[in-house]
Structures are given as structure tokens and as C-alpha cells.
């Protein structure tokens, strides 16, 4: 037959990609993992506007309110002052940390000075310190005024550099993107190849002239296109709806998509390993969770890895997602190019080499 020589493996591979892509878009779990979960987190954190300090302070019953200290407090937006609360409730809330401080201002019985008593709590130690220093600052100013000192011996001139405003979304979105790529890569790949074997779809492919590696490539391509479209959607939604910073605009966007692709390829390697060692469908989720959960928690998805105790840091520092998240944040917020994150990329690619070496060892066709 004259067609024999012209058989195109590429054409056959693309037919698989197309069919597989259709199949993925109709699978609820793929859509949930890739888009819905990250979207929920991004939305929740996108609306959490961090930034200014807020101090919950209660006034003790009988606190003098006809003095400049009190007026200074309530006119400062950092203080959220609770009045009309009985002592027992105040104590209880303070111990829980719901209140940051209790203030009691009393006029001296003998002269025109005031005595300010501040109760703070270990339950909200940091804010207690802030409350104390803000009150001190307020009182210092009043003291200077009452002593008629108009030229203090020293004063601070603070000059704030016009940095970029680092919003919560700038931290959360790269983390969620990394997590989305990780779960799509691992779960998607693990289930697909296991199912293709179980349901004999792959056996039917074997009976057609396509060569085996092209079957894998075709399936992998479909996953990649789907996951990268998801990544682009998340980045653009974050940018336009929640003000996610893309320092160099389109260049940053493209760099992030390239990083996503590299991360995804490595994560898919984990998926291949899981599908190779899983004995039945029920063992896939636990195995996949062993790969994804520690990275979800320890790779700086929700908070920086600096927050973990020092004995846990080494674990954080070997996980590939840590480096992907790190590289993403550097690229997105600091405007780093791909060359500037080559150290992170190096670790990710090293993982890739290791995991694909393992994947080739455990991969099963039947």
C-alpha cells in the first residue's frame, strides 16, 4: 500500500492529544483540581487586604475620657477602641487575645497629671508592644507640648522609598499556581495512565500503527495544554481582578508560563511513577497525596518557609515546589528573568532527571 511510507506518527499523536484533551475538559476532577481549588484560595486571599495595623483596645470602666490622651487615641485609626465593656469580659477577651490591650487613664488626685495603665497579654504579645509604643509616642508628644518645647533635641526624618506594594495576592497566587500544576501533574497523569491500562484503551491503541512513545507524548501534551491554559487563566484573573503584580507585563507573563511548563513536566514525572507503582485504583490517591500534600504544606504555598521551625527547613529546601514557588515570586514580583532564577531551575531540573529515571524504571504498558 502506498500509504505505508507516509504514515505520520505526529499526526497520530495529535489525534490522541485532541481526544485526550476533550476527555480532560469533561472530567470534573481535572477541572476542580486545576481551576476551582486555586480559584477559591485566590479569591479568599485576594480579598484579604493586608497592610495597616489594627489594635483592639478596651477602656477600663471608669476610665477618664476627658483628656488629650484619650482624644489622641480615638483619633488614631490604628486604635479600635471598645468602650462599655465590663471588667470580667475584658479580662476574658484579653486572655484569649481577642483584645490586644486594656487602657485605664486616671487623673491624678493631687495635680493635673494623668496616670495611664496599660494591660497587655501574651496571647497578643506583638500587638501589645505596638500598642505600648504608640501610646508612649502619643504621650511623649503631649509631654513636649505641655513643657512648651517646640524644638526637640532630636527628631526622626523618615523617608519611605517608593517600592512596589507587596499585596497578599502577590504571595498567594504563585503558590496556588504551583499547587495547581503539582496536583494536575501528579493526579492527572497517575490516573490517566492507570485508567488507560485498566480500561484497555491503550491496548486498542497498540493495535494501530502508532508507536508507544507517541501514545505517552500525545497524552502528556493534552495534559500540558490543559494545565498551561489553566495557569494562564489564573495569572490573568489574578492580574486583572485582584491586582496581581506582573512587573514587566507580557514578558513576566511569558516567563511565568515557561516556568509553569517546566514545573509541570517535572510533576508529571511523579505522576508516571505513581501510575507505575500503584497496584490498583485505590492506591493512587494515597500515593499521589504522599507526593502532593507535603509540598502543599511545606513549599511556601500559603506562607513563607521561613516560618517553619529550623529542623523542618531542610525538608522544605529539598522539595521541588519550594523552588518553583520561589522562582515564580521572583519573576512575578521582583521582575527577575529566567536567567536570574537559574539556581531554582537547576534544582527543579535535577528533580526532573531523578524522577524520570525512576519513571522509566517503573513504567508499565500492561
Amino acid at each position, binding site marked *: 500500500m502506498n500509504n505505508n511510507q*507516509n*504514515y505520520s506518527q505526529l499526526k497520530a499523536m495529535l489525534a490522541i492529544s*485532541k*481526544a485526550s484533551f476533550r476527555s480532560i475538559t469533561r472530567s470534573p476532577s481535572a477541572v476542580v483540581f486545576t481551576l476551582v481549588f486555586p480559584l477559591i484560595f485566590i479569591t479568599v486571599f485576594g480579598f484579604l487586604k493586608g497592610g495597616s495595623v489594627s489594635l483592639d483596645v478596651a477602656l477600663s470602666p471608669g476610665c477618664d475620657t476627658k483628656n488629650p490622651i484619650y482624644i489622641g487615641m480615638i483619633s488614631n485609626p490604628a486604635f479600635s477602641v471598645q468602650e462599655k465593656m465590663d471588667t470580667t469580659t475584658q479580662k476574658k477577651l484579653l486572655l484569649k487575645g481577642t483584645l490586644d490591650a486594656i487602657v485605664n487613664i486616671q487623673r491624678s488626685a493631687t495635680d493635673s497629671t494623668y496616670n495611664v495603665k496599660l494591660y497587655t497579654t501574651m496571647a497578643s504579645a506583638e500587638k501589645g508592644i505596638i500598642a505600648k509604643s504608640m501610646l508612649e509616642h502619643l504621650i511623649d508628644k503631649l509631654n513636649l507640648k505641655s513643657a512648651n518645647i517646640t524644638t526637640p533635641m532630636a527628631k526622626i526624618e523618615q523617608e519611605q522609598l517608593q517600592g512596589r506594594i507587596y499585596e497578599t495576592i502577590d504571595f498567594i497566587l504563585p503558590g496556588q499556581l504551583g499547587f495547581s500544576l503539582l496536583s494536575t501533574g501528579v493526579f492527572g497523569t497517575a490516573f490517566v495512565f492507570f485508567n488507560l491500562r485498566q*480500561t484497555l484503551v491503550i*491496548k486498542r*491503541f497498540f*493495535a494501530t500503527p502508532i*508507536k508507544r512513545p507517541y501514545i505517552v507524548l500525545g497524552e502528556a501534551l493534552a495534559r500540558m495544554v490543559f494545565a498551561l491554559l489553566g495557569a494562564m487563566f489564573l495569572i490573568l484573573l489574578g492580574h486583572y481582578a485582584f491586582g496581581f503584580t506582573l512587573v514587566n507585563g507580557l514578558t513576566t507573563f511569558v516567563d511565568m508560563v515557561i516556568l509553569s511548563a517546566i514545573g509541570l513536566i517535572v510533576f508529571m514525572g511523579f505522576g508516571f511513577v505513581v501510575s507505575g507503582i500503584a497496584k490498583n485504583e485505590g492506591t493512587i490517591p494515597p500515593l499521589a497525596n504522599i507526593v502532593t500534600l507535603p509540598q502543599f504544606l511545606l513549599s511556601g504555598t500559603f506562607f513563607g518557609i521561613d516560618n517553619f521551625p529550623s529542623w523542618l527547613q531542610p525538608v522544605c529546601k529539598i522539595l521541588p515546589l519550594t523552588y518553583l514557588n520561589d522562582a515564580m515570586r521572583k519573576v512575578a514580583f521582583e521582575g527577575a528573568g529566567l536567567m536570574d532564577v537559574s539556581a531554582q531551575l537547576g534544582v527543579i531540573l535535577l528533580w526532573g532527571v531523578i524522577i524520570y529515571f525512576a519513571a522509566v524504571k517503573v513504567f508499565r504498558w500492561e
Partner: protein
Amino acid sequence: MQKNSIIQVNNLEKKYESFHAVKGISFEVQEGEIFGILGPNGAGKTTTLEIIETLRDKTSGSVSVCGLNIETQANDIKQLIGVQLQAAGYYPSLTLVELLLLFSGLYNREINPMNMLAKVGLEDKAKAKFKELSGGQKQRFSIATTLINQPKIIFLDEPTTGLDPQARRNLWDLIRNVRDEGATVVITTHYMDEAEQLCDRVAVMEAGKIIALDTPDALIDQLVATGFERKKEVKKANLEDVFLSLTGNEWKDE
């Protein structure tokens, strides 16, 4: 009409670790015939078929398909044959039309999916999923996927197992059509009535060996010549004829 052999099997053997599935069989399939491989479960029918289809490695012996060697020219063979597996799966969420387009890509052939479905009487199921089909419809669809590359040989592994009498007859008609359009058909089955009606020649396998090979007529004549007689007088019709005359013989949506 001059008959050429299109498949040659010589001394084919297949050993699994603890099981000798095929024990040195030889046969030829002629171009344009419907060739049946009969035998009980575990006789080695599927193993033999899958070796010829280049899906399974042989232990020893030689097999050539359309003049091509199964070991060195597997990919060329795959372009010339259509394979219906005893158990095969399709992407569960795709429609029949989408699946046919997938296979048209896999075979590098341009097809009109609706024409393919019309060939097997499934035009009205174009938007259905494979799992929503009845047993007979599933088998007809599987055959449709094997016809995409206009194969010279079609392999059917127990296509009628589990089907009701009407669905079996529908499938027989379809298989005859495929043959009449020029393909050679190799089919395995448990049903002797099927082999008798459909096959030009049959090989009977048992425990990895071919114990008889001839036309159904000749095999029956040989048995009768040994003095064999049925215990019961044969009537002009059997229960299946009764069933079919009561329930109808047309293609129906089983």
C-alpha cells in the same frame, strides 16, 4: 478464482512462565475467506490471534501477514489489518463520532464518521458514549473502528459472545458485508452454529494445538463417515428458529 494465502503460520509456539499456551501450530489463511478458530476457553485462540496481530511476542516459529514478517515489520502490518479485541476500551467521555475521528488520526486516514457509523447501523448513536451502547452495538462500533484503514484482514475475537440471537445475526451480516467488500476475516468463536453458517474454513484448537482444520461441511462429513449419529432425530427447525420467528429478525436497538 485463484486463492492466495495471506497469512502463514509455521510451528508457532508461545510459552508463558508456567503455561504452554500454544504448542507448535501451523496453518494458512486464504485471501478473501472467513477463517474461524474454534475451541474452548483457554485453548490458545486469543493468544494465537494476538501474536498474528503483532500485539504479543511469540516464543518460536514464524508468522507472516500479507507477506510481511511479524517481528520486523509489525508497524507495516498494523496499517494493513483491523483488530477487534475481545475486550477493548475507549475514552469514556467521548462520543462515537469523536472516537472515530481519533482512530482516523491513529490510522492517518480521512474519513466521514457518519458514513462509518452508517456501515454498522449506528447513525442515530453518533452523539452517544461507548458505555451507553448495548452489547451488540458495542461490537458493531468496535468493528467500525477496525474498518477505518480499509484493512486487508480483519481479526475478530469472540465478537458475538454475550449477544442475543438477533444481535448475533446482525453481526454475521455485517461480517459477510466486510468480506464481500474484499477483506479477509479471521474470527474466533465458541458457537458452532456461527462457525457453520459464517466460516469458509475452521481450525479447531484444544490445549494449544490445532486438532482439525477444514471446511465445516468436510468436518461434518468426516464425522458422519465414522458412523456418528445424533441421538435425537433432527427436526426441520430448532428452538432458535422458533425464537427468531417469534421475536423478529430485523436490526433492532437491542
